[in-house]
């Protein structure tokens, strides 16, 4: 009697071999196309020329030599940046709660109308998430003029896409047994909302909103590049004036502020969930 146990037979590799070969080929074609396409516009001779080296020799030491002449203005603009992110994020959070309910499958029911509403809002939120905030800001700057308000609107709309989707997904995971228990006891819709659904979702809603605030702070630092308020305006101006010391200081301030906010946000979110 043969007691030795044979290893299971090797799975047939042909299919995976073909998938691998084809994907590697496609991938190399993609990279080759990119390199060929970009090579013309790259200006390698200009990028790696003496002027670049000379420029780097003047720019890089100046970047590290922080220029604090306008420190007060930088702090003011950073506060404005944070205010843009906060206002936009709060607006988005408030808007996203009803949107979340409208995109949640278990809230809209199985009726024909519910399905249509659910899919409509889902598609709408996906569409909003496609645009970078700064593109939205550009359109708002064109329509209402360069002001922090344009930035707030762009942040609010950009955040609504993500928050609405996440809120909807959170509501879909709600324990429906609690809802049924309340229904069996004769609670009306408003009572079910306040005593069965909201207590289950509020911690996660807050956690997502704070996480989105983190992203919004990063996004609002660059809104000023196109004139929608915040620190971005000053960075473009000082870079155009070749005031590299100030650029260095602004970048340092952004790094510090974003790091501190990330840290606090992670701390609060750990406590919430």
């Amino acid at each position: 009697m043969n007691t030795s146990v044979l290893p299971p037979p090797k799975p047939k590799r042909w299919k995976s071999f073909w998938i691998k070969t084809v994907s590697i080929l496609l991938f190399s074609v993609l990279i080759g196309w990119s390199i060929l396409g970009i090579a013309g516009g790259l200006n390698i001779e200009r990028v790696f020329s003496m002027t670049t080296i000379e420029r780097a020799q003047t720019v890089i030491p100046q970047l590290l030599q922080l220029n604090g002449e306008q420190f007060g203005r930088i702090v003011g603009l950073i506060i404005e940046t944070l205010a843009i992110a906060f206002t936009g994020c709060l607006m988005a959070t408030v808007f996203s709660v009803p949107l979340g309910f409208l995109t949640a499958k278990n809230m809209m029911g199985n009726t024909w109308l519910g399905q249509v509403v659910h899919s409509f809002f889902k598609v709408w939120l996906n569409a909003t998430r496609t645009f970078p905030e700064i593109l939205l800001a550009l359109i708002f700057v064109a329509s209402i003029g360069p002001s922090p308000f344009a930035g707030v609107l762009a942040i609010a709309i950009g955040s609504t896409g993500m928050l609405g989707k996440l809120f909807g997904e959170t509501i879909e995971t709600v324990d429906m047994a609690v809802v049924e228990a309340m229904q069996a006891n004769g609670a009306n819709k408003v009572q079910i909302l306040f005593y069965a659904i909201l207590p289950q979702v509020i911690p996660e809603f807050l956690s997502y909103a704070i996480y989105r605030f983190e992203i919004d702070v990063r996004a609002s630092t660059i809104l000023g590049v196109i004139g929608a308020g915040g620190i971005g305006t000053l960075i473009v101006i000082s870079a155009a004036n070749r005031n590299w010391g100030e650029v260095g200081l602004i970048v340092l301030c952004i790094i510090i502020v974003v790091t501190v906010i990330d840290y606090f946000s992670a701390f609060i979110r750990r406590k919430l969930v």
Partner: protein
Amino acid sequence: MNPTKPLPLNEGKVPGLVSKQKKRSNLLILLVILVLYIVSSLQTNSSLLRFDGEFFSNVWRMMSQMWPPQFAYAPMIWPKLMETIQMAVLSTVLAALFCIPLCLVSAQNIVRNKWIYNGMKGFLNILRTIPELILAVLFVGLFGIGVFSGILALFIFSLGILAKLMSETIEGIDNHQLEAMEATGGNRLQVIWYAVIPQILPQFASFSLYVFEINIRASVVLGFVGAGGIGLLIQQQINFLNYPAAMAVVMIIFFVVVIIDFISNKMREALL
């Protein structure tokens, strides 16, 4: 004694679901948020009073000026669109290549020296805090206007994201395989090649695709600061008040991003 009268246990009050202390702290949090909102909406001059008739008429005027999109402008768009996609591809590939050593060094279970991996993690965190558009402003100042600055900015930004995600993945792998390799005398490189790489390869591909999606969106706007790509066209058309053409660019970007996201999502689902 009247038997129908209830005993005055809680003076007839029913205790609430939420304790008094909890209620007070919730109220405090709400107040803080409200005060912060008022301060920040004053600072940015964006109170709810701004949503008046004038605001809506402005936005409506803009929308009606943008419509219908002028797709006759499309032939001008394709080369810049291709450039945008190529920038995203190249920067993602570069980031994926350079991320491999970085994520290995910043993973706790590969490099056991506390100082090295914590230092690397801090470095990656700092790298991620600088928005790509500000990196682009810096590089345009250094290397001049053009695609190179854009690719470099995207590369550095996505390197931070990818290396962070990958180092966290490496820290989450099955350590028994590493130990088994070490116990049978495998050297560092062999451990990485035979125990780490096979475990992280699907995630690596998936995260690279995710970073590619981010890079596509980011490369769209790099043109605003002269770092190449389609952003330049949008800004030009809006500055020339040629809104229908700008709308055409925006819509084409929209469709391209949706298609790329769709393909990338399908590939990531197949990978994991």
